């Protein structure tokens, strides 16, 4: 098992190299010049040329990439073009905020979606199932910026229960976390339901029932465990996506997260910051995937057996 984990971690290295390579080149292909970006409107041709030279922007892209990777290995992601602050420091400030938001959203979705999925499956075609699935469909279909605004109008503007934005203690976490949770709840519910439906039709469930095991235990012990694997996959994917993709929610709720940082950096053509954000996304996505794979093994002995 440890060997497997180690191997998986080692596999992350080529992934990271591939990601940085692609992103570095794509950013270099986009129009706009970093030196004139840094110097702003009033810059003279001369000073732009001097800064380009100083920053090594005249070197071939591959040389620039090599330099970037060498620094990266030393833990140096460079300094932001627009703020002059270190990328590591800035991301260090923003990433925990996004993580806080994402983990809350995922916990909310798990708490809501798994039970609904199970009940919907065990009571298929009941009124509960229909209502649950309609909600799931609506939840998946609502864009998060719209959900966010509706929640703000309802709970901040009208009821005044929660602040409309910003990051000010637990209260300010509620609305953005729910906004993010709504979409992922919907997809996790649907996955749980369909995999439960598949499992409860298996022979071994019938066997268990025939043995006289109570329905409750059949569902909880025999069926759920096997049905959870696809659900965990979806949870992992959602978690990974949310870590990098909560841009709209972060914007609507003025949440100082890393998604917003990246979009703002793209607009400012702040290459080191964009690269830094993408590396963090890729890294967190890989780590989440690794954790999910380990969880599979934990839940399913057959998978664990393969790793020995």
């Amino acid at each position, binding site marked *: 098992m440890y060997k497997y984990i180690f191997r998986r971690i080692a596999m992350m290295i080529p992934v990271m190299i591939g990601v940085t390579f692609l992103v570095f080149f794509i950013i270099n292909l986009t129009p706009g010049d970093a030196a004139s970006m840094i110097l702003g409107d009033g810059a003279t041709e001369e000073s732009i040329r001097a800064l380009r030279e100083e920053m090594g922007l005249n070197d071939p892209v591959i040389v620039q990439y090599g330099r970037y990777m060498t620094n990266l290995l030393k833990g140096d992601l460079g300094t932001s073009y627009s703020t002059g602050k270190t990328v590591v420091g800035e991301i260090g400030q923003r990433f925990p905020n996004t993580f806080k938001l994402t983990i809350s959203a995922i916990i909310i979705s798990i708490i809501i979606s798994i039970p609904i999925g199970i009940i919907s499956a065990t009571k298929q075609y009941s009124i509960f199932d229909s209502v649950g699935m309609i909600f799931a469909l609506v939840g998946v279909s609502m864009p998060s910026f719209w959900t966010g605004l509706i929640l703000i109008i309802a709970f901040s503007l009208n009821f005044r229960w929660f602040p*409309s934005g910003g990051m000010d203690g637990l209260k300010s976490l509620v609305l953005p976390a729910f906004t993010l949770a709504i979409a992922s709840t919907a997809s996790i519910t649907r996955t749980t339901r369909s995999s439960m439906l598949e499992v409860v039709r298996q022979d071994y469930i019938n066997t268990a029932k025939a043995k006289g095991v109570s329905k409750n235990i059949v569902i909880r012990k025999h069926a759920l465990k096997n049905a959870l694997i696809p659900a965990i996959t979806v949870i992992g994917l959602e978690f990974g996506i949310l870590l990098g993709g909560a841009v709209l929610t972060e*914007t609507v709720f003025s949440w100082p997260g890393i998604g917003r940082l990246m979009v703002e950096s793209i607009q400012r053509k702040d290459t080191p910051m964009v690269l830094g954000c993408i590396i963090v996304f890729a890294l967190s996505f890989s780590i989440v995937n690794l954790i999910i794979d380990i969880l599979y093994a934990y839940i399913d002995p057959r998978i664990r057996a393969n790793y020995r």
Partner: protein
Amino acid sequence: MKKRGLSLLLILVLVLSLGVGCSKPAETTTAAPSQEDTTAATEPAAPVKEELVIALSADITSLDPQGHNDTKSERVSFLLFNRLFKLNTDFEVVPDLAESWEQPSDTEWVIKIKEGVTFHDGTPMTSKDVKYSLERSQTMPKVQHVLSEVESIEIVDDYTVKITTKIAFAPFLYTLVHAGASIVPEAYVESGDEFKNPVGSGPYTFVEWASGDRVVLAKNENYYDADNMGQMAKIVFRVIPEGTSRTIALETGEVDIVDELQTIDLGKVEDNADLTLYQNPSTRVDFFGMNNEKAPYDNKLVRQALNYAIDKEAIMIVAIEGAGTEAKSVLAPSMLGFKASDYEYNPEKAKELLAQAGYPDGFTTTIWASGDERKRIAEIIQGNLMEIGVTAEIEMFEWGTYIDVLMKGEEETFVLGWTSNPDPDSTITPLYYSENIGGMNFSRINNEKIDNYIVDARKELDLQKRIGLYNEFHQYIMEEAPIVPLFIKNNIVGANAALKDVELSPQGLWNIEKIHY
């Protein structure tokens, strides 16, 4: 057993996340008077607040006044630092740290600075700091252009400096009002703190900057100028990127002022008895540019025709909900020496001019634009042009690409806006001086007479003569008509109705230190 393990893990994650949620102490618990406020919505008399919360649409980029060149960061820099001169709400230069000044010759400025000014760390400000700051400004990438006309800075005595400019440079005092000309304490800057905890001399001191979230300042009780002390104990700038969210935060009382209110929310704020709307014309001119090098726009008559063809009123309604004024020349009316042209919407006259120019049946062209607002502007122009027989296609660009391709000069026509610094020279030089073709002279006008006006006015130290030169410049350039000026967008500020002394300059919210409940 394993199930229990899994649930334990989940509980652990939950507890951890709560821990993270609480680990950052709620810095501004005092900022939540919203509930009490709004239950008593009918009484505008709010409880005495000690804190002013201002919503910004984007985060500041630097606390170093010489490390940025954007208006958001400027708001903060102006509270933390002083300059030798500042602008009043009418855009006139008034002394700040300067006590008096004289001009021994056309290129020399001797400035006496006020005595008894101390920085936030208690050290006194002297001419050494002034020299240091202005020289530093010339070397800092973002603001090195601000004082580029300065040749040398000499210390005369502890409270006097002599600044020599390279040429007789009329806008000199205007360059000293820029945030990049802020006076920073030499000892602090040299200490290597890199403005993590900036020390200035301004009416407010630095407390905290949470990236992407907020900047917190506290009143400087030892401010040198007793008449212009900060009014509120604390000022918090909150970053709220989404326009609707900004308006809602104002409505719920979470913020006291919204610096840039969305035009679509104008009515909402106006109709709300608890809120007040402040508007004044900005220095930003939105314009329809033509590539003066390309046919048919190399023909003056065609350019003039288009100045008659475009319905600016309709554009303002569609693009900015009417929150602006029609632009009558290449600059905003608040600028020195402004003179309006007499173009008006008159399609018949436009057709006549086109016929005279040799295009009685019109022609086809493309309009380049970027962003939603400019797209709407382009669509109205497209309709206007159709009326005079010109068929236009619209081509959209991503912003970064847009500026790049415009500089290359491949465009036929384009929609753009330009926010001016206080002195006219800083706008007309980049936009209309022939040497800047390939740079910001997007309309690519190359006209000797225009060049001469720009250079002469820059050198003219006699204010009245300078105004006269600019008057002539405006008249001449609008006759040449390199662009069609469209509108001057208003600065729109929404504020709690109980706030007093909210002032706007053409650059938006002004003298923030004076605002109070």
